[in-house]
C-alpha cells in the first residue's frame, strides 16, 4: 500500500485544497523517526466532503493537522485557494488560519473548562477584531442558534455543565465563527452515543449546505463515513490505499485492506451472515514499515513484487483509484 502517485488529482477542476507529497515525521528518539504521513497527495473540490479513514495509528489525524500546519510538515505542499501555505510564515500564515478551522474528537476537553460558552465562541471573533463587543455578542447568539442551542440558556454556562453532544455543538459554533472555507473534523462523533451521533452528523451536513463549507471528515467508522462523504480516502501506515466515491468503495473495494475494513463492520441484522474476510494481527510499527507495499505483511494476496516495488495509484473505474499490484476483482 504504498500509495504514491497523483493520478487521482483533479487539478483541472480548480480544487479548494491541493496537497502534494506531504510528509510529516515525528522524532522517536535520537536516531529514529516515524513518518506518520509518508508522501500523501490528494485534493478536495469546493463543496465536497472528503473522508479520510483508517485504523488508529495510520496517520489520519496527523494528516488533518498537517493541513493546518500544526505542526509544520517536513515536506510537500498544501495549496489552499491557490496559495501555497507551506511557503508562508509569520503574519502571512496567520492571515490564512481563519479560513481553515478544526473540530476535535473529544469535545469536552477541547473547550476551556473555565470559560463561559459565550466567551469560548467570542474568543476567535475577539482575536480577529470582528466588530464591537455588542456586535460580537449578537453574532455569538446567532451562532448558538444556528447549532441548535438556546443562547439564553447556555450563554453563561461552562463546558462541564453540558453533555458530549452539546459540547460538540459548541465546538462547531466556535469553528464556524470566522466563516471558514474548509472545516477539518477529526473524529467528531466517535465519542458520542448513536442517537446523539446522528444529530451531530445532520448538523454538520446542514452547516455545510448553509455556509457552503468544504469538509474533511476524519473517521475510523466506515458506516458514518458512508453516510456523510462524497469521496473517501483509505489510509494505511501513512500511505494511501484507495480513493473512491463511497458507493463505489463499499460496493467494489479494490484494495485488500479496504475490503477487510468493510467486512469487519458489524451489520445490525442477525440474518446477515458474518463475512469471513479478516485481516489478522495489527498494523506493524510505523517506525520500521515494511518495504514495498506497506500492507503486504497482513495481505493474503501479497507476492514477491509487493515486497520490492511500491504500488502506484492506478485507475480501476471512473474516479476510483487504488494502490495495489493485485487489486481485488469483482
Amino acid at each position, binding site marked *: 500500500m504504498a500509495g504514491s502517485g497523483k493520478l487521482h488529482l483533479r487539478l483541472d477542476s480548480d480544487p479548494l485544497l491541493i496537497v502534494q507529497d506531504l510528509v510529516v515525521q515525528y522524532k522517536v528518539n535520537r536516531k529514529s523517526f516515524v513518518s506518520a504521513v509518508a508522501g500523501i497527495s490528494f485534493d478536495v473540490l469546493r463543496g465536497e466532503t472528503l473522508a479520510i479513514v483508517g485504523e488508529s495509528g495510520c496517520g489520519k489525524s496527523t494528516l488533518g493537522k498537517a493541513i493546518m500546519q500544526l505542526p509544520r510538515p517536513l515536506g510537500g505542499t498544501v495549496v489552499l485557494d491557490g496559495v501555497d501555505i507551506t511557503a508562508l510564515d509569520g503574519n502571512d500564515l496567520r492571515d490564512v488560519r481563519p479560513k481553515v478551522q478544526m473540530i476535535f474528537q473529544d469535545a469536552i476537553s477541547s473547550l476551556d473548562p473555565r470559560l463561559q460558552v459565550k466567551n469560548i465562541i467570542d474568543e476567535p471573533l475577539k482575536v480577529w477584531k470582528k466588530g464591537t463587543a455588542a456586535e460580537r455578542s449578537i453574532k455569538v447568539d446567532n451562532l448558538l442558534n444556528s447549532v441548535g442551542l438556546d443562547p439564553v440558556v447556555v450563554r453563561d454556562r461552562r463546558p462541564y455543565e453540558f453533555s458530549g453532544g452539546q459540547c460538540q455543538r459548541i465546538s462547531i459554533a466556535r469553528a464556524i465563527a470566522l466563516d471558514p472555507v474548509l472545516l477539518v473534523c477529526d473524529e467528531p462523533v466517535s465519542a458520542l452515543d*448513536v442517537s446523539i451521533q*446522528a444529530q451531530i452528523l445532520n448538523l454538520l451536513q446542514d452547516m455545510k449546505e448553509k455556509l457552503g463549507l468544504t469538509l474533511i471528515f476524519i473517521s475510523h467508522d466506515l*458506516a458514518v463515513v458512508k453516510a456523510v*462523504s*462524497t469521496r473517501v480516502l483509505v489510509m494505511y501506515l501513512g500511505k494511501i490505499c484507495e480513493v473512491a466515491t463511497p458507493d463505489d468503495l463499499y460496493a467494489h473495494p479494490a484494495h485488500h485492506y479496504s475490503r477487510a475494513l468493510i467486512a*469487519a463492520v*458489524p451489520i445490525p441484522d442477525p440474518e446477515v451472515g458474518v463475512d469471513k474476510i479478516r485481516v489478522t494481527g495489527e498494523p506493524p510499527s510505523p517506525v520500521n514499515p515494511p518495504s514495498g507495499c506497506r500492507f503486504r505483511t497482513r495481505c493474503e494476496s501479497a507476492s514477491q513484487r509487493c515486497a520490492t516495488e511500491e504500488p502506484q495509484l492506478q485507475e480501476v473505474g471512473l474516479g476510483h483509484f487504488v494502490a495495489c499490484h493485485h487489486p481485488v476483482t469483482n
Partner: protein
Amino acid sequence: MNQLLKLSDFSVSFTTPRGDLHAVRGVDLSVAKGESIGIVGESGSGKTVLSRATMGLMPSTATCTGSVEFNGVPLSDLSHAEVRNYWGTGMAMIFQDPLTSLNPVRRIGSQLMEGLIVRLGMSKDQARARSVELLERVRIPDPYAAMKKYPGELSGGMRQRIVIAIAIACTPELLFADEPTTALDVTVQAQVLELLAELRQEFNMTMILVTHDLGVVAGQTDRVVVMYAGEIVEAAATKDLFANMKMPYTEALMKSIPRLDQSSGQRLRVITGRLPDPTTPEPGCSFAPRCEYATDKCRAEKPPLVTTQTGHQYRCFFPIGGSL
C-alpha cells in the same frame, strides 16, 4: 431450562446531593446456562450499573434492592466478603477500557497469575504455565515475552486480549463483557468478537454482553435486552427483536445508526431530546417525551412490561405493528 442467574425486581440507586438517582429500576431478568445475552442502551441507560451491581461491584453510595440469585444462591443476602468468593470462578468481567483496567506498574504475568493463585490455589509454577497457555489461547504472539511486559508496552487490542485472558483464567460460569470492543478499531474488534465467541463455545460459558452497538449484538447474542432510563423496555430472542421490533425506542435507536447497506448521502433519523433526569422519574412512560407516537395516556400512566406468547417482552401501550 437451567437457570444460572435470576434478577428479581432489582433496583440500584445512588445517593447524590440532588437526591436519589435511580440508575436501575425494577429489573427482572433470568439467564439460562450457556446463553448469550446482549444488554443494549444509550449511555446513562443503566446497563453498566446493572452488570456491575449484579457482581457486587458497587460503591458505598449505592443502594441495591431486590434479589440476585446465582446458581440458586441468593447473592443479595450474602455479605460482601462472601460474594467475593464468586468472583473469578463464578462470575468475571471484561471491563470497557483496556487501557485503564490493567495495573500499569505490574507485569502482565503477575496480573494473570494473581487470580489463578488466589482463586484456584495453584502454585506459582503452575500458575505461570497456565498463564502462558491462556495468552496463547487469546492469540498473543510470543506469550513468554508478553508475560514480562507492562501494559503500557502493548497496543489496545493486545491489552484487551490480556483483559479477556484474566477474565477467563478461572473459567467462570458467567462472563460479563462491558463494551469489550468500543475502544478498538473495527478490524481488531472483529478479531476480539470472534475470539469471545470461540471461548464461549469452548468453555461453555454464559455471556452477558453490554454494548450500545446493535451491530455487535446482532452477530453475537441469542437474546437481547434493551434498556432505557434504568428499565428493561424490550427483550426478545435476537432474530425476533430485529425482525419484529415492538418498542418505538428500539426502532428509533436502530434507525439512527448509519449502515453500510444503505446508500450514501441520506439524512440520518435522530432521536430528539435526551434521557430523562434519573433523580426525578416521569409519572408515565420514560420514553414518552422523545417518542413520536406518544399520547396523553403514555405521559400519565406507566406501561407495564407485556410478555407475548413467543416470549417477546415490551413496555409500551402502542407497540409497533400492534399488540399480539
